[in-house]
């Protein structure tokens, strides 16, 4: 089916107009398209011929040279999160905030990758949320039409004027220009909440921190602050939990990879959360994504690498691997409990895993050493985050190869 794009000359395009900030239900149709997506081949027609207001903002992308769109769901706020730094590092270069722009911008830009924070799509600022009595976790505090429109624009190779949510003031600042990069990461609370945005994602990850680990991490993060106490930290987690469970947690079922972080089972009552049990839950049947496996794909394995060939310090390392069902999806789960203490352990483990998507022997070890001072560098969080970075590289290269093989798809009628 030919790829047809029609733009109406009188409508502002979403790339330059301030109107992107208006709620789309006010009648602004963004960039109206009569287009077909190459993958599904269906036709989308804005319904304004009958004079009726077009209520449903339809949003699917269609073009070649598409940036690869990655979604990352995490409750740790945005910014220079460790996961992002590892990811951008796989592709090379440092990710920094946009130069010369708003110093409170949440965006990170490297040579290949741009990471935006989905808080920028809050429809209600801090005062607004107080007034309407909703948390930031509530979908009512977020403008999914705008998120959808702008992610689609990036996917189609068009720049966007994206609002900035200022976490210091709690206000929405004037927008910043974002140019389409090779890899576009949307990070935040709701990357997989809206079905239209989900359709635009080429790969998605959900970082699932268990309550005990969340508590331990927040104690480390907040106890030094005046005003905070164990009780206030506990109360904060508990008060947010209903909204978190209702709106954020269900996104897990849509993720291609879930990284689940739990307390260790190797030490009884390790309540400092230092030793972690990390599970990488990988969906089967996702295009361009080969789940990692141990020894024999599809079988169930339990593996303790420490022994005669490898000496580990307490509490050691334990792996397990096997197939499972997760929210009605076929998955493979690779689990690591414990801690790396030495380089040898890291390279030993790497050399025994399969489908890691490394380009050379020791690539994961090298990446982990490069960032030895990052949190999680000695356990499954750092290890699996690095693996996910390589999996994203696979998706990126596969999509580029597909495009190279079919250059005539974008011919206009």
């Amino acid at each position, binding site marked *: 089916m030919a790829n047809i794009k029609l733009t109406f000359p009188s409508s502002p395009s979403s790339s330059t107009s301030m109107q992107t900030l208006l709620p789309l239900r006010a009648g602004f149709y963004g960039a109206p398209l009569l287009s077909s997506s190459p993958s599904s081949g269906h036709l989308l027609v804005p319904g304004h011929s009958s004079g009726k207001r077009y209520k449903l903002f339809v949003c699917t992308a269609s073009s070649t040279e598409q940036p690869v769109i990655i979604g990352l769901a995490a409750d740790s706020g945005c910014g220079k999160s460790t996961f992002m730094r590892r990811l*951008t590092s796989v592709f090379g*270069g440092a990710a920094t905030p946009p130069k010369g722009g708003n110093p409170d911008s949440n965006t990170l830009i490297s040579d290949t990758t741009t990471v935006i924070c989905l808080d920028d799509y809050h429809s209600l600022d801090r005062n607004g949320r*107080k007034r309407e009595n909703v948390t930031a976790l509530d979908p009512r505090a977020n403008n999914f039409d705008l998120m959808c429109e702008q992610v689609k624009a990036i996917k189609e190779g068009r720049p966007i004027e994206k609002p900035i949510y200022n976490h*210091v003031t709690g206000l929405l600042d004037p927008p910043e220009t974002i140019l389409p990069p090779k890899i576009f990461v949307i990070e935040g609370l709701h990357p997989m909440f809206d079905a239209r945005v989900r359709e635009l994602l080429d790969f998605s990850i959900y970082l699932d921190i268990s309550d005990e680990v969340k508590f331990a991490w927040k104690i480390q993060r907040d106890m030094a602050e005046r*005003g*905070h106490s164990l009780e206030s930290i506990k*109360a904060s987690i508990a*008060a947010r939990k*209903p909204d978190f469970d209702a709106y954020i947690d269900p996104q897990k079922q849509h993720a291609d990879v879930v990284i689940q972080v739990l307390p260790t089972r190797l030490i009884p009552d390790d309540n400092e959360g230092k030793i972690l049990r990390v599970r990488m839950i990988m969906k089967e049947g996702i295009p361009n994504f080969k789940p990692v496996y141990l020894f024999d794909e599809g079988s169930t394995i339990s593996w303790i690498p420490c022994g005669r060939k490898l000496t580990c310090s307490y509490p050691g390392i334990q792996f397990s691997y096997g197939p499972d069902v997760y929210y009605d999806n076929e998955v493979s789960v690779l689990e690591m409990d414990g801690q790396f203490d030495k380089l040898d352990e890291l390279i030993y483990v790497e050399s025994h895993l399969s489908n890691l998507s490394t380009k050379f022997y020791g690539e994961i070890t090298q990446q982990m050493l490069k960032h030895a001072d990052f949190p999680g560098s000695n356990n499954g969080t750092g290890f699996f985050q690095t693996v996910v970075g390589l999996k994203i590289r696979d998706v990126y290269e596969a999509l580029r190869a597909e495009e190279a093989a079919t250059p005539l798809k974008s011919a206009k009628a």
Partner: protein
Amino acid sequence: MANPSSDIKEVLSQRIKEAEEVCVADSSSRECAVAWDEVEELSAEIAHKRVKQEDKKDPLEEFCKDAPEADECRVYED
């Protein structure tokens, strides 16, 4: 001129007190959740800024942390 970092910490302190008060009446109310959500947002931002400050010791070091392969970050052994 106001120090922005102590401002936000002041605000955090106040909001924690407010949240504790709001939740005394009904700890499962929406008002309670909204109050603690604001505390969470502020705490996250303070922690984020703190990490940024720690990193800021030497701009070159900070840059090289993320891009050790860059020309500026090359290390020579004589």
